[in-house]
């Protein structure tokens, strides 16, 4: 793959008057954003036909920085808003940019139901194990023992594996990478954007400021080394025992299937309704 310079991508897609971004030095959100823009660029998608949707959190500020139609909604509700946009105008391609707290805590219900319906949307999920924007409280993805301001002695609850959840709920495409897996990341987003139905690319993303600092990893490189330690490629994970996988996070592609998306299902439903009413053959 030929990689355009980051400046070219920036100049083509960002709103200059919105810069600088609000993101802290070393934050991984910018990388995930760059991968998404590169995927759009590589696929030659028309920006006028893409709508970015988000909830609330650091990750959710992304639609403000990109020069597309964008809806920055309420905490956790992005996918519910997206359902309305997509069904009201199925021509629009929807990218939902969301945080792990946004998607899996307050928005958990919308998340599983959007997947159940197979809503046509590509979710870019920033998993930083924490609530970045509000200053480092624990997120439902936080592994046991990780610290947050609301679990100062280390998280005692079990975490959600978001990708796993998405696979079980029925998503058409699910992949997870750390933001350091840039080629895999871009390729996954490209795949996701080309598919019908619900697609999810989750990124383990460093939040040195709200998360790393409280977990003895003050910088991005320290978080990178930690990701390298805790992540296991899916091929390898298949050969590992549950005990060996304890405290590890599997990365890779978890689902790639082609169930009909919500838009197509509703089109069929409309036809069925008209047939049943004798309006149309």
């Amino acid at each position, binding site marked *: 793959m030929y990689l355009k310079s980051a400046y070219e991508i920036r100049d083509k897609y960002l709103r200059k008057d919105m810069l600088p971004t609000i993101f802290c030095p070393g934050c991984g959100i910018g990388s995930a954003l760059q991968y998404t823009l590169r995927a759009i660029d590589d696929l030659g998608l028309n920006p006028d036909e893409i709508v970015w949707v988000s909830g609330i959190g650091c990750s959710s500020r992304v639609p403000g920085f990109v020069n597309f139609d964008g809806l920055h909604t309420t905490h956790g509700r992005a996918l*519910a808003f997206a359902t*309305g946009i997509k069904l009201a105008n199925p021509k629009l391609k929807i990218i939902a940019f969301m945080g792990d707290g946004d998607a899996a805590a307050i928005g958990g*219900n*919308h998340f599983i139901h959007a997947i159940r319906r197979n809503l046509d949307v590509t979710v870019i999920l920033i998993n930083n194990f924490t609530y970045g924007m509000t200053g480092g409280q624990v997120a439902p993805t936080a592994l046991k023992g990780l610290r947050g301001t609301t679990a100062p002695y280390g998280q005692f609850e079990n975490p959600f594996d978001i990708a796993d959840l998405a696979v079980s709920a029925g998503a058409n495409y699910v992949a997870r990478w750390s933001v350091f897996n840039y080629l895999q990341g871009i390729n996954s987003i490209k795949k996701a954007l080309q598919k019908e139905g619900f697609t999810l690319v989750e990124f383990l993303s460093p939040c040195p400021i709200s998360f790393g600092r409280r977990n003895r990893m003050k910088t991005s490189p320290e978080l990178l080394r930690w990701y390298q330690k805790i992540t296991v490629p899916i091929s390898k994970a298949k050969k590992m025992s549950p005990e060996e996988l304890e405290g590890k996070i599997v990365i890779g592609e978890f689902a790639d299937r082609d169930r009909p998306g919500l838009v197509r299902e509703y089109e069929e439903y409309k036809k*069925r309704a008209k047939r049943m009413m004798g309006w149309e053959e």
Partner: protein
Amino acid sequence: MRYPFPVGKSDFIQGDEAIARAAILAGCRFYAGYPITPASEIFEAMALYMPLVDGVSIQMEDEIASIAAIIGASWAGAKAMTATSGPGFSLMQENLGYAVMTETPIVVVDVQRGGPSTGQPTLAAQGDIMQAIWGTHGDHSLIVLSPSTVQEAFDMTIRAFNLAEKYRTPVVLLTDAEIAHMRERVYIPNPDEIELIERKLPANEEEAKYPFGDIHGDGVPPMPIFGRGYRTYVTGLTHDERGRPKTVDAEVHERLIRRIIGKIENNKHDIISYETYALDDAEIAIITTGIVARSAIRAVKLLRERGIKAGLLKLNTIWPFDFDMIEELAERVKKIYVPEMNLGQLYHLVREGANGKAEVELISKIGGEVHTPMEIVEKVVG
């Protein structure tokens, strides 16, 4: 356009059914909801009709998602509605505020039932008046309409869409279980008999750059809907005229919020609608709204028969509120009575309007039954 119900003639239908048919005739093509008594029949009717008119009806996972979906649909260009009752309406409040802040035209029907909490699911009440006006947080304004008959439920639904589009604002249609389930004769007009208002769109690229700017001086910016190449960013954060977040700028916040409230307040004489009955020479005024107005009309007749000069002011719009009109009325009459099915919500507004110029007495009733005319008469004759 073919309609899945008869048009241009009368039909004997429930209030909920009337609201659904009116929404379709008003051009609503997106409905999202979650079932709740006594509003479910609106959803059921929409579920039946929407696919036939190439619209969408979808059952969301809850009321939060329902209002979120209709806001999204509105930004994608559709006229959109949801309907619920008290508990669901409470869940919607955060996103109702989002619709106010982002100036999104939507219609939210709240079929009131007895509360608080799950209360009395099948019985009528008027306990959500304050919630409809003030339920969401922060300084804001929106429009609240209140019908007294099934025909009015029909007519006001069309008006709700028109006002939402005209002022780029959420409109709440506040009705109750009694009207929702009551069957009455309703005239369903032909589409060409209905006057519809559509939202103002940007005339050009330049106008589209200011989706939250008062570029026409009427307080209502044109709405650049998604997918037309305008690249609009919409946020519930405090934003400037271009939609850019400006969360710590006092001036931007003040300008935005005052305009959003101002576009309703400055146009209140266009928005406010009321009816009077025997009020011209009245010494006793009864002010009420919704289902209770029907008992109140009868009460006025009975009072007049007894030689008491009573008159009725029936409020069709609950918000914006014409405080000045109430004050003028208070100057003319000896006493004002406010019968309502709660412990005094409209009463607060009327008393503020009356401004001490006349005594205001609440005639409250809760538990699910509408006041009988005699109950009102007895309070007045003492």
